[in-house]
């Protein structure tokens, strides 16, 4: 079985759910004997490979590699790095910011006379807005669809859908689109019509849609009016990595309990509900510290609100955490809270579990469908969230039970489970 996959760069280069999911899934698919040809959007300002061969249509430079320096790509049979600046968390506004950054990077490269740099100014090739860039990226689908040998096409999230469709058009091979998040998850009610249109177009053109939860499946049916028969739910897995050792004796806030929020500080992740709950908790239980780890467009608003609620002493912001700091944050915590307003899957609770940290998640998350040993609350039910925080901090029995059972759970939800399902979908589609 050969797959042409339009995916995303693996961690640590790309942190966040999509890169992690692409990595975990492809690795186990390769173990099952699936040959993966991976197409990855890659910023030129990150690329330093001397052995790459450039192919591709006009205005799109692509490097093709069959041998990798990076360990995490070893299971991929061929990689096509496409020079584009799209990334999975992008919207129209952030695209503009990236464009500016790329221009700066390009200028630097030319000054350094990097061995890789071409004679032309690459930044000039990028689309003038996100959609023209997505369209430009999609032309790689046509090129590879004609040139490469594969049995099935697999595209992850909307930015790659058009490329997948192009590949299907020229190859006549089945297209599977994998929905990790919809525009409704990312933007709430501020849905971008253009993104919605591309998502729906991908869903209509696809031969099969993979959704990361029933929540996501329902969203695809209700908001995109897609036949539920075409959609299959495949839950994400979790990578079987051991916890980083951490000496809890040495943690700060001695004598105080620590409650962690970790994620982008954006409306979707519900940081404001976390804050309101903290306020209630502190009225009843003063020896608690609340840590908000991550960055995002609501950070400033959160800081101001905390100041006005006079909670600054009990509230800590860490900013964006690198992978090591992230592990440490989980290890230090007494409780992890994910109060997301909308979360197609939500992988962070699984990270908290590695450290035996008890968990409260919102019912509006896909992972709530498979996570049994956690408290689940509606994101808006601040009192219930606060009560849950107090109960879990005051009472060890619940945390013990969660820890014990979640350890078992982690062993059962490796990426081999979704990989098996995906491989079966590949065979169904090609037979």
């Amino acid at each position, binding site marked *: 079985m050969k797959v042409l996959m339009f995916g995303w760069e693996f961690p640590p280069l790309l942190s966040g759910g999509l890169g992690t999911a692409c990595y975990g899934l492809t690795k186990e698919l390769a173990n099952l004997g699936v040959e993966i040809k991976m197409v990855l959007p890659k910023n030129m300002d990150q690329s330093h490979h001397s052995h790459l061969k450039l192919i591709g249509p006009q205005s799109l430079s692509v490097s093709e590699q069959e041998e990798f320096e990076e360990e995490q790509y070893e299971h991929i049979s061929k990689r096509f790095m496409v020079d584009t600046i799209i990334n999975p968390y992008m919207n129209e506004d952030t695209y503009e910011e990236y464009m500016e950054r790329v221009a700066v990077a390009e200028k630097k490269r030319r000054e350094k006379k990097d061995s890789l740099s071409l004679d032309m100014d690459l930044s000039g090739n990028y689309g003038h807005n996100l959609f023209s860039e997505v369209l430009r990226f999609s032309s790689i689908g046509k090129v590879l669809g004609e040139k490469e040998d594969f049995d099935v096409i697999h595209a992850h999230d909307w930015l790659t859908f058009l490329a997948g469709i192009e590949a299907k058009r020229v190859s006549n091979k089945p297209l599977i689109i994998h929905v990790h998040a919809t525009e409704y998850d990312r933007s709430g009610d501020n849905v971008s019509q253009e993104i919605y249109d591309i998502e729906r177009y991908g869903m209509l053109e696809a031969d099969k849609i993979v959704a990361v939860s029933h929540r996501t499946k329902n969203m695809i049916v209700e908001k995109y009016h897609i036949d539920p028969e075409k959609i299959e739910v495949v839950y994400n897995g979790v990578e079987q990595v051991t916890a980083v050792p951490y000496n809890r004796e040495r943690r700060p806030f001695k004598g105080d309990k620590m409650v962690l929020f970790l994620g982008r500080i954006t409306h979707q992740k519900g940081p404001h509900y976390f804050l309101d709950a903290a306020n*209630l908790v502190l009225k*009843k239980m003063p020896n608690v510290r609340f840590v908000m780890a991550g960055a995002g467009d609501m950070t400033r608003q959160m800081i101001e609100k905390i100041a006005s609620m006079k909670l600054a002493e009990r509230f800590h912001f860490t900013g964006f955490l690198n992978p090591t700091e992230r592990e440490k944050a989980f290890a230090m915590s007494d409780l992890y809270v994910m109060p997301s307003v909308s979360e197609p899957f939500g992988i962070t609770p699984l990270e908290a579990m590695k450290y035996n940290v008890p968990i409260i998640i919102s019912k509006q998350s896909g992972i709530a469908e498979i996570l*049994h*040993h*956690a*408290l*689940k609350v509606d994101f808006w039910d601040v*009192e*219930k969230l*606060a*009560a*849950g925080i*107090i*109960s879990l901090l*005051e*009472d*060890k*029995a*619940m945390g*013990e*039970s*969660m820890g*014990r*059972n979640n350890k078992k759970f982690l062993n059962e939800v490796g990426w081999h489970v979704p990989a098996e399902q995906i491989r079966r979908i590949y065979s169904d589609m090609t037979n």
Partner: protein
Amino acid sequence: MSKSINLYFQMHQPCRLNGDYNVFCIGNHQDYENEDVLLQIVKKVARRSYIPMLKKIGATKDKLGKNFKVGIGITGLALEFLEKYSPEVIKLLDSLLKKDAIEIIAETYYHSLAFLKSEKEFEEQVELQAKKLKKLFNYEAKTFRNTDLIYNDHLAQKIESLGYEVILAEGTDMALQGKTPNAVYRPDAAPRLKLLLNNSSLADDLALRFNAKDWSEYPLTAEKYWNWIKLSLQKHDLINLFLDMETFGEHISEEEGIIDFFDKLVAESQKETEFEVRWVSPALAADLHYPSGSVKCVPFTSWRGQNRDLSMWIGNPLQDKLLDFSYSLENLLKEKANKKLLDSWRKVLSSDHYHYACTKRFERGWDRRFFSPFESPYEAYMVCINILSDIKERAENNGR
């Protein structure tokens, strides 16, 4: 000599705790229960199961006369709630007693696990149940069954000392040690008592498998089931079938044919030509059949869970802590609490709430009779702990 089928039905309703009773409620209010939910459930179960089944029992008695009598186990709580929300059931029970169609079986008033934690509380609850039966029906029970058939030698001794004549238990391998459940025994530790053991396999065919479409014997007809019973009765004189009454009409709906099945089964038994068949209650079974040996059972057994032990109610950190905390309040409450507060505490003691805190429910092969009104064992645990904390606080403040 005629052959006997000893059939006994369990009836129980726990109080429905208020799922919103969180830590902020402690010291604030005493809305421990959700009466609306209780009312709806009691009315529904009465309509779908209790009333049609009790009527069926009455009609069968009218037809079969002395050849028909069954056992009914009913908790004090269930009686209390039925009096309030479905008095027709109480009237039916009364009329069935009058025509000698049923034997009522004693147990703890609150369907509690008290025997595991406090013999004093256990005896008080058995006494409360006895008083309730006396008051409602002027009835004195001879047979005892502990909550969910939880049983061991030690319990047998206690029940013997309380003056009961017959005790019921699950026919576990632990108790039977290769012997047949289709007989009357004496507990090794309590030789004056008679012990009847559930034929788990035949009982489970109805309770767990009757409507399981993936079961190789599906659909189970009365003819087929009668043949299985007959195979046993050819070798033995007695079969004990202990069932939750809710199996008939509630867990398995009338539309799935379970109530009709009961009728047809009785009819099959009366068509039998090889031997005469009597439907008997536990005390009658113990009278009619001579004990065929003694049974020793040191560890606790029950009719729940894959291993028929205590693992539905104890063993995980939540359940153990909940159980310890519950009974740690006993002395304080008996000393200081008023009647209402004591009753609130005892309502939490119902085994159901410890069952809801069971974390095994997510495992494969889980007992499909399991039902919990709580979203997770953690919710169940928190609500119970919070209610108990409030009860404790109030008792400490002299029952206010």
